[in-house]
């Protein structure tokens, strides 16, 4: 699995998910929490079948323990986390597959774009902030760039996921809509 082309992120998610999957068999609250983590981890990797299975397992754990306000809150939180992670995963996969300029890409929230952007460029990215407030991140090796959501007039709010730098310019430019 190489979700976004940054092996460091893929490796971390993969290891955490596998550990959580094993821990999900532990009875009680530890297993329930681990199931939730496994659900989110699988969602990030695009394994939606496994994400739903572990999500249901987490919910069952909550229900078995007895429904309280905190439990319902935890279940809703887990659902939102899975949904958020799925959006981040969708953005990264679409950006990675894109070739050339794609000016109408998938829709995502601003927060999903920002998280996906950080993953897209990896650690130690170089940051530039424009006076308008938009942030531009260039990966350490210079091969990827992320431009944060900005109002682009007739196109509305968009963010950019760029890759494939040749002759000091990016050859792929994927626009995420907000």
């Amino acid at each position: 699995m190489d979700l976004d082309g940054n092996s460091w992120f893929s490796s971390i998610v993969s290891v955490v998910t596998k550990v959580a999957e094993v821990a999900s068999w532990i009875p009680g609250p530890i297993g329930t929490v681990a199931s939730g983590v496994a659900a989110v981890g699988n969602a990030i990797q695009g394994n939606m079948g496994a994400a739903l299975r572990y999500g249901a397992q987490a919910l069952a754990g909550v229900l078995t323990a007895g429904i309280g306000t905190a439990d319902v809150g935890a279940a809703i939180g887990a659902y939102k986390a899975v949904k958020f992670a799925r959006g981040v995963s969708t953005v990264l996969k679409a950006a990675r597959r894109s070739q050339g300029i794609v000016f109408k890409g998938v829709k995502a929230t601003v927060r999903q774009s920002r998280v996906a952007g950080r993953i897209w460029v990896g650690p130690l990215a170089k940051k530039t902030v424009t006076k308008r407030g938009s942030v531009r991140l260039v990966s350490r090796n210079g091969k990827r760039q992320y431009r944060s959501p900005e109002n682009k007039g007739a196109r509305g709010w968009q963010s950019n996921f760029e890759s494939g730098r040749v002759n000091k310019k990016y050859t792929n430019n994927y626009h995420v809509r907000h």
Partner: protein
Amino acid sequence: MTQNTANDFAFADRIAEVIHGTRFEGYLHVTVPETVKTARAGGVTYVDMVFARRDLDESDHWRYEDRADPGTESAQEELETARLDWYGEQFELRWLDNEAAAKVRHEVFHDGAERA
């Protein structure tokens, strides 16, 4: 601390017609955004370009594409030679004079609202 880099780049805020062979394809607007230099953010100069292309499928018949590469080198070379390599497509540029550029800036680029 604000870094004003627009004055250092000869093509900042200029507009060109974009031509493919003999066919008019649209307009290119070049800008250099001001950047804020902080302890965590360096002051890399960007050359932003917005290409307004004729497209009858779009509501106002313009499709806006953008490009923003860190550093000025690649853009400088293309703009100086008036030959644009737009994600693999090759075009010629014909720079507009101030009067024509002002009209296009207002009518097509909505006074700078169409940005990269």
